[in-house]
């Protein structure tokens, strides 16, 4: 493994993940007010209602697929009686469908963003960069699947990419596993690292506060004026009396 491979598959992942984690902490402390979806639905609804659910639900499927493919070791699925062919067919079919939905949804959203005047005006440079990296990552991921597993003879990433992915989290990075992966997969992984690194500084942060708590909390929220913190801590002698 040469120095470049070490830099790309050992150093870069840690840098990206550190930036991702610390970036979110910093953003949450520094910029809670900017932490929003910044929805543009007020300006335009028709295209959004087609593109946005397609993109988001597709993306949720894609994420689920990545969890299944990257996190779950091959040995486990085999122990559960899922043959390599069965896994492969399911993954390729579902993955391609989800990928096409996501990329299609994104295409509608990007088209909307460019052509609907108010939406375009509300697009910042930050957004444009984020869209570019996001679109690149999705396109490369879909291309890798289609080229290797639909058109090509099939590539078992579960023997190379998945162990590499897991090795990062065990702090025993095995960069050489990635060095031999097909170029499209490597490019996909690299652009994903870039995406994770810029994530905390873009509007993508809204994903981390997906409101799942809504399912369990009581409908009406009461809060006391006492909970509202001013920017200053109460001075000595001004602490609440009860």
């Amino acid at each position, binding site marked *: 493994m040469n120095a470049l491979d070490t830099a790309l598959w050992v150093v870069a992942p840690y840098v990206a993940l550190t930036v991702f984690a610390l970036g979110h902490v910093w*953003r949450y402390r*520094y*910029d*809670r*007010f*900017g*932490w*929003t*979806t*910044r*929805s*543009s*639905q*007020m*300006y*335009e*609804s028709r295209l*959004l*209602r087609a593109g*946005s*659910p397609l*993109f*988001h*639900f597709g993306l949720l499927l894609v994420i689920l697929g990545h969890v299944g493919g990257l996190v779950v070791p091959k040995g486990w699925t085999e122990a559960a009686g899922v043959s390599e062919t069965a896994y492969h067919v399911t993954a390729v079919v579902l993955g391609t469908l989800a990928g096409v939905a996501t990329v299609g949804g994104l295409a509608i959203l990007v088209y909307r963003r460019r052509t609907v*005047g*108010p939406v375009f*005006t*509300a697009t*910042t440079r*930050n*957004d444009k960069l984020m869209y570019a990296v996001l679109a690149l990552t999705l396109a490369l991921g879909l291309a890798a699947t289609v080229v290797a597993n639909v058109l090509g003879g099939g590539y078992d990433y579960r023997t190379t990419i998945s162990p590499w992915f897991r090795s990062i989290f065990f702090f025993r990075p095995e960069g050489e596993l990635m060095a031999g992966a097909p170029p499209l997969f490597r490019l996909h992984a690299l652009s994903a690292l870039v995406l994770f690194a810029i994530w905390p*500084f*873009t*509007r993508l942060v*809204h994903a981390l*506060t997906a*409101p799942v*708590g*809504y*399912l369990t*909390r009581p*409908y*009406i*929220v*009461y*809060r*006391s*004026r*006492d909970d*509202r*913190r*001013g*920017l*200053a801590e*109460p*001075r000595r002698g*001004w602490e*609440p*009396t*009860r």
Partner: protein
Amino acid sequence: MTRVMAQLAMVMNLDKCIGCHTCSVTCKQAWTNRAGVEYVWFNNVETRPGQGYPRTYQDQEKWRGGWELNRRGRLRLRAGGRLRKLLSIFANPLMPSIQDYYEPWTYDYDRLFSAPAQEDTPVARPRSLITGEDTKITWSANWDDDLAGGPELAPADPVLRKISEEVKLDFERAFMFYLPRICEHCLNPSCVASCPSGAMYKRSEDGIVLVDQDRCRGWRMCVTGCPYKKVYFNHRTGKAEKCTFCYPRVEVGIPTVCSETCVGRLRYIGLLLYDADRVAEAAAVPDEKDLYEAQRSVLLDPHDPEVIAAAGAQGIPEDWLEAARRSPVHKLIFKYGVALPLHPEYRTMPMVWYIPPLSPVVDALAGTGHDGEDAGNLFGAIDALRIPIGYLAGLFTAGDPEPVRAVLRRLAAMRSHMRRDNLGQEPDPSIAESVGMTGERIEEMYRLLAIAAYDERYVIPRAHAEQGARLEETATGCSLDVEGGPGMGGPFGEASGRPAPVSVETFHALKERQTTEGLAEADRLRGRVNLLNWDGKGVPEGLFPRHDAGPGHDDGSHHDGPRHDDGPRHDHERKS
């Protein structure tokens, strides 16, 4: 034991509203005079009959705001429950578009000055604040002002559509009144229930419904959830905003801006006590027409010793209980029984109440040549004039005409009683008796409705002094949200980043003034105009419009007044 909670509530006396929109304008100046909320009016005044703002917001078949009963008779959000909300979060199907409110605009005033010499007078063209392009103005928050619907607009009034067909035929004999609206600060707020992030909350001390700007993530479900469409989406910051009941003001005991500036003095603010445990039950009574009574039944009598004991045990301070006993709102709802809630059928238990207007009836009566202030004539007209009554019932009592009729009869009795008094005639006790009141009580009510002073109309207990330190800074948090100010245009788009605390700003400005030899240079105040620190001399950046120093201006003479051009600032002052 009952769970006693306090609620700041408002009553508006519609007979006195002249539709001057002072409340709307002062509210806008105070709260929504910013980019992103150009279309937002926390307070608006609608002409009824009319479509309202946003257009046809009362049509809950379409917008699905508020609550409804499910098959088992339990409350559920009309737009769908929790799971449904989360599944439609990526594109809210029930969200009004900017066109349903109106597309805000400005005028290209610069053209008036910069147009070259020409035959025709240059005009300032309207320009959309949404697209930045030239636009054609077709609607605004108040486009149908004074039209009372009119034949083109009236058929779309959802309240009018609900009452019978004959109304449309009879509409030629039109009636009209104004309906000022703010957030209802409901006891059972469906906006709060709709917020996936839990950013919206009801303040437990005074019941004011607020949006936590740091927790709001812009999922937009509150806009759908509120049947009054009084939660708005700031399209620049991506956060929900709403009427705050001017909490920084009421916390120190002064009324809201809309009340303070009301020319007709038609607003009353006071405290109500209610039983929080009974709200859900009362909001779920099967028959819509019982909702008005149900809503009254959750409110507690502040004179009842048991209520006082329970409230005290739950930490409601004594001065707040005293304020509840003096509350003009409680008097108008119970003692005089003339205030009605707006659209109780939405089942949100709204806490801005209205005294329905008698004037449509009086006007109709006077129009037929009868004496519009004679008790007999008025009582007869109230019974006969079904259309105004039906319309008012559609607004205030879920369509039940009886409570509206009773209120109007009381107002009519007051009018007749006071006229006799005014003209020095013998008082006629039968007038008061026919509406279940005494002459004395009618005169008390007249006093409150007609001549009550400031401190009788607004009985607002202050937030407690021991909480004072916590209130620092919070009231001034939004003063930085001016375009180009430090609060706006952070690295992550609109308004990202922490604003500098006002005390820090003031500290630096004072220090600068105390240590500098020249005049305080207000334009060094980090790009914003802080009038508190401006000593009236010098020209702060951004306070006056800048115009380019063209050749025509550069005549070398000294200006006496503030200089507006881009040349070196304060030179003439330093030299002098």
